[in-house]
């Protein structure tokens, strides 16, 4: 009998709890929704993780309605919208190729504030599912905790692939892929037991890419599509600090050169045109077909006195995969100058159509140059454009293409000028670029709380076939392979 009475009471309680008080006033706002991150009016890939967002205002509730052409999705929260992964996936599947209106409102006191809708264009072109990056605090000279992480872009799963706390706290450089493929990648670990870790099909090798001929070792690199070679710049890097309020760090090379590492016979080699002491060479990048090597080049100046007159151009040279050596003449395809700026980080799209690169006012360390923007070169005619939709008034730098050449990721400091985050931008078949969006996080407040910068974001179609345990074993238990 008691139970019979209890059930209606519980039901009534639940019903009462689930009822929300109706707001006394409904206000249609004119200004855009005050959400963070800025996910307004963007193009997104059909396979991206839920775009959770929040508001910083003191509100009692936020609500969102994603109105698609065939279906809709609703969500609400205290001051954050966190979509269910399952509902999101279903919604995205049904609305792929469609434009979705995002109706956002929030309850503040007795008022329900309705904001004008913004739109998400769900692109049928998917983005590579995996992103790797280095997590580092944007310091000056001292580093402490560095991690390389792999993120699944289709959900919120992350996986540590290296943590320097277990690697003698050695400095670790960023991780790069070959062919956007998880089974071909490399990165450097410094320190006494360090070396370049090469991953080919999950087999990890520790390489000593340094010898008497190439004392500065290997720094910035690019893997040849064959996986047999990689091009590196050897840079003797000098950091300096700015005194002025808006600038932080300047890094330049005392000397630099380019070299080719061959991984089957363990050879390092170069040609005189790429080791000329009267020039500086850096940021090598193979074309997608592996027949050309792009890089940045500048005359060697007295530094740091002439740092503001240091302008890197973009050059290329043919590469013979049979001999594993660059051949022929160097061709300058973009001239650095006081008028045009200084180039860095050339990145070729896998379809061979575009060259994306950074341009700063001067120098070779664009990450700390607020004025750095991404430029897009159409390789067919050499035309260069500044994609305004993509760039910001803060540094927009290192980038990596998705396998289908429709998406690229880049590191941007646009939100606060200090902490770099991965932003994704779409480029359509006509070469038009769209407003980028930041890597979505399960908790949208994540970027407020984290003190890490995302360095060198790199896209890959498949997951890395190793984990940090395997890496630690290689680091601690194997000798570095020497190179002739």
């Amino acid at each position, binding site marked *: 009998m008691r139970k019979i009475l209890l059930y209606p009471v519980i039901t009534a309680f639940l019903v009462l709890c689930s009822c929300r008080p109706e707001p006394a006033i409904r206000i249609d706002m004119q200004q855009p929704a005050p959400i963070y991150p800025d996910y307004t009016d963007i193009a997104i890939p059909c396979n991206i993780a839920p775009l959770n967002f929040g508001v910083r205002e003191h509100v009692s509730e936020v609500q969102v309605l994603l109105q698609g052409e065939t279906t809709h999705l609703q969500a609400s929260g205290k001051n954050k919208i966190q979509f269910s992964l399952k509902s999101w996936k279903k919604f995205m599947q049904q609305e792929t190729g469609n434009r979705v209106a995002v109706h956002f409102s929030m309850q503040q006191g007795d008022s329900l504030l309705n904001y004008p809708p913004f739109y998400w264009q769900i692109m049928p072109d998917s983005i590579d599912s995996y992103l790797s990056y280095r997590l580092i*605090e944007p*310091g*000056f*000279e*001292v*580093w*402490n*905790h560095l991690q390389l992480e792999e993120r699944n872009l289709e959900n919120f799963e992350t996986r*540590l692939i290296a*943590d320097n*706390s*277990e690697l003698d706290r050695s400095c670790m450089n960023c991780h790069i892929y070959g062919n956007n493929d998880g089974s071909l990648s490399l990165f450097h670990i410094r320190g006494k037991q360090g070396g370049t870790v090469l991953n080919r099909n999950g087999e990890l090798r520790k390489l000593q890419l340094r010898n008497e001929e190439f004392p500065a070792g290997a720094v910035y690199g690019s893997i040849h599509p064959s996986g047999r070679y990689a091009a590196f710049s050897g840079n003797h890097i000098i950091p*300096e*600090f*700015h*005194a*002025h*309020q*808006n*600038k*932080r760090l*300047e890094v330049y090379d005392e000397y630099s050169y380019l070299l080719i590492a061959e991984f089957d016979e363990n050879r390092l080699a170069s040609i005189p045109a790429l080791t000329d002491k009267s020039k500086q060479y850096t940021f090598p990048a193979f074309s997608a077909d592996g027949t050309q090597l792009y890089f940045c080049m500048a005359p060697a100046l007295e530094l*740091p006195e002439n*740092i503001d007159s240091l302008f890197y151009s973009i050059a290329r040279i043919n590469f013979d995969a049979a001999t594993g050596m660059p051949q022929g003449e160097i061709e300058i395809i973009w001239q650095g100058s006081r008028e045009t700026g200084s180039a860095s980080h050339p990145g070729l799209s896998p379809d061979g159509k575009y060259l994306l690169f950074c341009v700063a006012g001067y120098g070779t360390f664009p990450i700390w140059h607020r004025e750095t923007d991404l430029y897009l070169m159409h390789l067919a005619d050499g035309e260069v454009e500044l994609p305004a939709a993509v760039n910001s008034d803060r540094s927009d730098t290192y980038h990596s293409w998705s396998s289908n050449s429709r998406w690229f990721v880049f590191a941007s400091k646009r*939100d*606060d*000028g*200090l*902490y770099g985050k991965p932003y994704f931008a779409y480029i359509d078949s006509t070469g038009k670029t769209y407003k980028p969006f930041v890597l979505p996080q399960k*908790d949208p407040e994540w970027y*407020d*709380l984290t*003190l890490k910068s995302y360095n060198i974001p790199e896209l890959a179609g498949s997951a890395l076939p190793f984990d*940090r345990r395997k890496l*630690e074993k290689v680091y601690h238990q194997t000798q570095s392979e020497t190179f002739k």
Partner: protein
Amino acid sequence: MKHSNVYSSVNRIAPILFALAALLWWGLANKYLLYYQEQFQLFQFTFDYLKSRCLVPGGISFYIADFLTQFYYYPWIGAAIIALLLVIIRQLVFRLGRLLKADATYGLLSFLPSIAFWAFLCDENALSGLLIGTIFSLAACCIYMRFPGNLTNRVICILVSLPVLYVVAGSVYFLFIAWAVIYEFREAMRRKEVAHALLRLGLLVLAGILIPLLAQLVTQYAFAGLLSGIGYYRFPQLYTFTGLAAVALCVATPWLMRGFSLLKSPEKRGFILTLTAVAGIGFVWIYKAADPMKEEIMRYDYLTKTGQWNAVIAEAEKKSPTSPLSVACLNLALAKNNQLGDRMFEFYQNGPEGLIPSFKRDFYAPLVSNEIYYQLGMINTAQRFTFEAMEAIPDYRKSSRAFRRLAETNLINGQYKVAEKYLRALQHTLFHKKWADTMLKYAGNESAIAGNPEMARLRKSRYINDFLYSDTEMEDMLGLLLAQNPENRLAFEYLLGYTLQNKDLERFMTYYPLGRTMNYTHIPKSYQEALIYMWTQQNPNFNGLPWSISRNVLDGVSEFAHIYMKQKQPEAILKEKYGKTYWYYLLFV
């Protein structure tokens, strides 16, 4: 009253006296160590913080320790917390002794672990997570001892306690394992079951190692770290003798109490001997553990960071500081009170490093030095030193003090979004929230910043033009700072102080005229001494002296020169009378 009642009363009163002693020690004598500890963490009331701390074996202890450490912001509360933790440990150790049927006569021995922990905490890198973990482990030992005659219950207790304790207390759970090993071994041996004793011993040790091995699968730490412990000391996986001894004493002391109880010596003699031994060990151990030199730096640093310039000078007047960092704090206080030129050489000076310390790859020294750069208006350098100091904290923790300074430097530099990031994190704290709320109002509010005297002054004092800063050319950096802001009197005093400390009088003479526009009412004493020294190098008398030099200085230099020229070993004589002059520094330091 029977003797046993007397000892019971002593065992009840002694913890209160012990707590009082600890309270006074930490609240009065060592309070700057508490400030020091508080600044190297940033306890936030967020789920992310809880998660990040608790994902480590022992994380719950570390989280509780962090929570308690934030109260060190008020040293008396911090002292009370430490006193309480020490007394809890003592009570648990005493309880274990009594469970072993130890006599109350030897109850004072139970203070030994707490004394060891007291000494451990005198190390500036010791973290109270070890104390919390130890309390959990001792509590588990007490629970385990509730089943003296029931092996099954004890086994259940061990099986449940081991994983739970490892999660809660971390590798200090070996305390519990050690206790159980000794107890089980003894129990088996009492029944003359040697094989059984060895089996129990082996199984317990195996279980103790197995759990960290399993933890390796779910945490990011290597086995060595998981076995030895991670969050008990600021340098992960590093142990001090005192820390290890404190934990070992927790196991050994109850058995020691029991051992003494079995002796047939008279109660009174045993009690007096125990009292003498514990008091003697406690005094010597704690006295040896305290480091007055470090305490001096922490004291000067705290007074400097809180802008108590008069208090810094008063400390120096009592006893001149000797460490470079303390001297640097004193010089800043003198400069802030417009006394640097007058009084710099009244105190011990150790050269330019004591005026404006260069960068060191450390988590504390740059934090102290940043105060000088900040006050001078070298905001980017202050920011760099602060950032690098925080980055160098060995256990990857964040620093509330660094967050505050980074917020300030970014506000001054107009980097409001970055400042907001630090301030928002501080809003999640207990004692920095109010400050963060206030400072957030400055973000993006130019007129509010202009109305804040300190921020407005520092904005005006900064470099105007950009150049690449050089740590090794400090004189040029100070010169540029002054050249770009001719009203920056602090920069002028540091520039002149730098040349004086560097014994570069030619450069001093070059820069000296820049002070004409600084509204000095008189020529500061050390400048007078330098000027007159230079004059006497080129002129036979004071005729035509272009500066207004005081009679005392004129007489002084004559006498100084006379003693210097006439005496065979003038240093001792001159130190007596002229040890606080620039001349003495110039010629003898």
